């Protein structure tokens, strides 16, 4: 496979603050490459450096092995960008917005009108083509913004949190479109803070935290690395108990397992080896826990992420929603 982008020791400083800290990665032609990390991790800043919207403090950016760090304009015809906020013209309708974007890349009138029509259909926006952009709903805006990034048929599309702040159905639609687009050959660089999204879409993922890439691998490898880890969730009818007391007791009886009390209805056990479920249930039964269900949990990217970054997922989501 060919490298389309390569970042070498890419660094961005804002004054004394290092937003992106000497990161290295490449994006292969034809893949969906994911950047996964919490707020302020440096995802947008990295994209900005790769597309020429931010100056690189140190390090280099290569497109097809050519160092374009100082001559970003040279790479820009390959690039389509969908920013984290809609940035189309509020007073112009959907169709004109797309045509205008195409014209910036030198597309002749007939060509851009055909392309705009086609994209409006693909994105399910054909009937709204004459509606002003600022009268679009949030989901429609996001779709049109993606369509705008595709007008000139870029080789690589940057998507900065394409589904944040959008309802479930539109989110799914957008994910399907991304997949289709990728099947037809467009390389995709995607940032997200939704683990499931990264897991479902990406070939390779970089976990980024405080400006550093903590782990970078294919989704399959990331999951394998976590396969040894077994996890069982046992739920019971609600019961009052003292958490600390129970943990100490469980530790004493099942020393090899890690126990985590999720709430007054569920306990999670995890360990390196297969977990024998019978003694656990028997024990809980004796303690008059009314056990309802025992689930063997599949290894998920979520666990890998939590393990590697030490960031609890709930925290990440909560912060996003605040925003």
């Amino acid at each position, binding site marked *: 496979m060919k490298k389309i982008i390569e970042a070498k020791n890419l660094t961005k400083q804002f004054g004394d603050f290092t937003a992106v800290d000497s990161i290295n990665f490449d994006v292969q032609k034809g893949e969906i490459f994911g950047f996964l990390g919490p707020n302020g991790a440096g995802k947008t800043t990295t994209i900005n450096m790769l597309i020429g*919207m931010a*100056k690189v403090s140190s390090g280099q950016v290569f497109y097809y092995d050519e160092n374009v760090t100082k001559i970003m304009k040279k790479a*820009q015809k390959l690039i389509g960008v969908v920013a984290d906020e809609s*940035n189309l013209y509020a007073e*112009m309708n959907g169709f004109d917005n797309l045509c205008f974007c195409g014209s910036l*890349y030198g*597309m*002749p009138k007939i060509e851009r009108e055909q392309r705009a029509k086609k994209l409006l259909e693909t994105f399910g926006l054909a009937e709204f083509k004459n509606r002003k952009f600022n009268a679009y709903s949030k989901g429609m805006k996001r779709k049109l913004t993606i369509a705008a990034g595709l007008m000139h048929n870029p080789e690589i599309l940057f998507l900065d949190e394409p589904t944040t702040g959008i309802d479930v159905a539109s989110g799914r639609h957008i994910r399907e479109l991304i997949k289709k687009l990728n099947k037809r050959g467009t390389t995709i660089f995607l940032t997200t803070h939704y683990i499931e999204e990264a897991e479902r879409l990406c070939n390779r993922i970089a976990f980024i935290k405080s400006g550093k890439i903590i782990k970078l691998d294919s989704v399959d490898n990331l999951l394998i690395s976590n396969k040894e880890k077994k996890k069982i969730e046992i739920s019971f009818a609600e019961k009052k108990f003292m958490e600390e007391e129970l943990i100490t007791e469980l530790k004493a009886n099942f020393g090899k397992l890690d126990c985590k009390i999720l709430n007054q209805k569920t306990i999670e056990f995890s360990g390196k080896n297969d977990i024998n479920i019978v003694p656990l249930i028997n024990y809980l039964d004796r303690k008059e826990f009314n056990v309802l269900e025992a689930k063997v949990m599949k290894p998920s990217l979520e666990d890998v992420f939590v393990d590697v970054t030490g960031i609890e997922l709930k925290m990440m989501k909560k912060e996003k929603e605040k925003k």
Partner: protein
Amino acid sequence: MRALIPFWSILSKDMKNYYLKPPNISWGIIFPFAWMLMMFIRTKTAINIQEVFPGIVSMSILFGTTSMLAVTITFERKARSFERLLLAPISIESLVFAKISGAILFGIFNSLIPVLVAIFYFKLNISSMFSLISGIILLSVVSTLLGLYISVAAKEVFEAQTYSNFFRFPMIFLCGLFVPVLSLPIIIRPLSFILPVTYGVDLLRNSINGIHIFQTAVNIVILLGFIVLLFTLSIYNIKKKWIK
């Protein structure tokens, strides 16, 4: 040909979205009339067209161009749509050129009403058509570039408007629009000479054989110098401040 597509597209988009909107067109028509009326009331007699012509034409151009750039540049940057232009594979110089072309044409359009009224109604005698045309064009370009320079520095539309008022109003007095520069107190005259509008107004004075300081050619050369300087400075600022 393909290279011209973005240029035309940016220009025609701005024309359609901003310049050709009824409020802006009518501004270009009403504004000069309002000034002529004010002059008329002030002097309480028939206007001496020879005296007020350079001033009214310059004002129309100056206010028309600078007020539009606050919208086409500062507003688009705030709304982030300007990013689209910066992301396109067009040099920053050419996209800025496309952006200011609309304002230059708008400035020229704004000067038409007072010029036509002066010539056809007041029978003003134009002694040099060349000075008049080059004066209108260069004044439009130079005041557009002043507006560009200000709009690039501003973060908000209201900031751009405040800054440009900060320049525009003193310029009415400093640049010889209604009071010839040479009759200003000698200590403030240096200020007049560092402001490009002074030379544009002087060109208009050349065209009607009014009281002027320099010959046509001198004014043109100085104005061209200012144009190069302001354009270069604005591009430098965009590259430095907008692409952080």
